[in-house]
């Protein structure tokens, strides 16, 4: 049996300090998901980083060309496990754009509510993972417990806890079961009460501040130039949000408050996620109030035989990690001709790694990744 996997290989003899290779690799407790960096280090300082992506590559774009339009809706949420709904909505919006149809208002509102709920679950998972990367496991368990309450609501509404397969071209599959809305209100009140505890244990924790201050600073211009999107962009002071700039679903009827902070380091990003969590709860309440009556989907006949007319469209959705984009090209057939997926974590995971990691110490890598909410599956797709 040869030596253990992380061999102590001397790469370059740099002023007699041997640069050794350390796999911050795929199965590492600090790594979120199946992704890895090959770090060349001197002592505990990183000198060079090579991302080692591809463990999660399942060839979605190829698989989608083999399946019918409706079958892809089961495939699409599996791209990002933590935040599945934006994929479905983006895919369906792209198809609706090509077909030039307008989904009924009630369906728009239901879509918005499920999107925002999925955003809540993703924020809860993100904040918990950030705490765990710093060694604080208590909030992770408390937040996952609260996340289960939302997953129960999803299970009641769509039948699935994680993958909901709930949106279809032309609207949503079924209407809200009665009694579901007031249970949702109860869960939202519970979460709002919980926020005070999250603040005390995670966001007002002096050691969290000391650990995250100044880590991974991204300036206002760099954030735009590098293509960062979502909370990472707004934490550096850019007031851009897809829900406001290019509204889809029911966001045109709601007033979405864009929160920005000047700071751009890991701590500001964590606080940004925390404030947006609160904002999302208010948004869901607003949507619940304004939701009209009416049917929930257009009748497009037998969806399995759906034929999307020839054309192309790029649909963008604001997921909890950033802009999820679907570029759908159709040649009028039963199957999509080409579907390309733009994941929000690619600029953060691959490009910022080259910029930030080389001067960083090994103990900040997990915290740096947690603050940027890098979700490896949407890099590899």
């Amino acid at each position, binding site marked *: 049996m040869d030596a253990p996997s992380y061999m102590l290989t001397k790469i370059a003899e740099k002023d007699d300090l041997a640069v050794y290779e350390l796999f911050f690799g795929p199965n590492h407790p600090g790594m979120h998901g199946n992704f890895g960096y090959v770090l060349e280090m001197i002592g505990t300082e990183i000198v060079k980083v090579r991302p080692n992506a591809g463990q999660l590559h399942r*060839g979605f774009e190829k698989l989608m060309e083999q399946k019918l339009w409706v079958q892809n809706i089961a495939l699409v949420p599996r791209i990002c496990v933590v935040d599945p709904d934006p994929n479905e909505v983006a895919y369906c919006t792209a198809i609706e754009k090509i077909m030039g149809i307008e989904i009924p208002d009630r369906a728009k509102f239901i879509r918005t509510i499920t999107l925002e709920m999925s955003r809540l679950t993703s924020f809860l998972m993100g904040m918990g993972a950030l705490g765990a990367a710093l060694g604080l496991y208590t909030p992770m368990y408390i937040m996952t417990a609260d996340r289960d309450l939302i997953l129960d609501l999803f299970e009641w509404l769509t039948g699935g806890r994680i993958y909901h397969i709930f949106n279809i071209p032309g609207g949503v599959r079924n209407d809200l079961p009665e009694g579901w809305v007031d249970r949702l209100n109860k869960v939202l009140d519970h979460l709002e009460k919980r926020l005070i505890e999250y603040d005390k244990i995670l966001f007002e924790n002096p050691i969290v501040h000391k650990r995250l201050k100044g880590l991974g600073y991204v300036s206002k211009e760099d954030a735009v130039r590098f293509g960062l999107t979502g909370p990472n962009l707004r934490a550096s002071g850019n007031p851009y949000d897809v829900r406001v700039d290019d509204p889809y679903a029911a966001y045109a009827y709601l007033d979405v408050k864009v929160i920005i902070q000047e700071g751009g380091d890991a701590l500001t990003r964590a606080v940004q996620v925390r404030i947006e969590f609160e904002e999302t709860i208010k948004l869901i309440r607003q949507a619940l109030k304004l939701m009209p009556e009416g049917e929930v989907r257009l009748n497009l006949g037998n969806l399995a035989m759906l034929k999307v007319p020839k054309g192309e469209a790029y649909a963008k959705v604001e997921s909890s990690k950033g802009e999820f984009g679907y570029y759908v090209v159709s040649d009028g057939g039963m199957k999509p001709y080409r579907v390309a997926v733009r994941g929000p974590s690619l600029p953060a995971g691959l490009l910022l790694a080259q910029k930030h990691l080389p001067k960083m110490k090994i103990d900040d890598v997990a915290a740096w990744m947690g603050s940027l909410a890098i979700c490896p599956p949407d890099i590899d797709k």
Partner: protein
Amino acid sequence: MKLSKEEIIDLLKQRGLEVNDLYPTQISVIVNKENLINHLVYLKSIGFDHLSFINAVDFIDEGEFELVYHVWSYTNKVHVLNKVRIDRNDPKIPTIVDLWEQAQFYEQEVHEFFGIVFEGNKDLSPLFLENWLDIPPLRKDFDTREFSIRLFDAKPNGGDR
């Protein structure tokens, strides 16, 4: 200086580009390979500073690849799909890494899945696939079912193990 979509369309038309208006916030522009770079530089100058995505579409029956550069402007709130057609047999196109640094990874990905060579890109090493000897997988003439059945002897209906 916020430009409306119509102004942008006129500006591009003056530059002799074929523009069609797809959706309320989306327009697509046909560009040819030679003036792709200065077209993107021009776009960047009038406010299109967010390169959201580069991807390719394989039109096998027309024998061409179509590269689509998705660019979004935060100020004008317009999304432009710049489409470039290149010949399928020797797919070469200049790189735009010096315009946007994240293009490096998008180009690496497109190179790996389509075999399109980006001249000037220093590192086109494979990003996701390892030890890949077949033709780039996202091309239309690559059959993934056949590959999966041969290599992993996958059974179409899940089969009994």
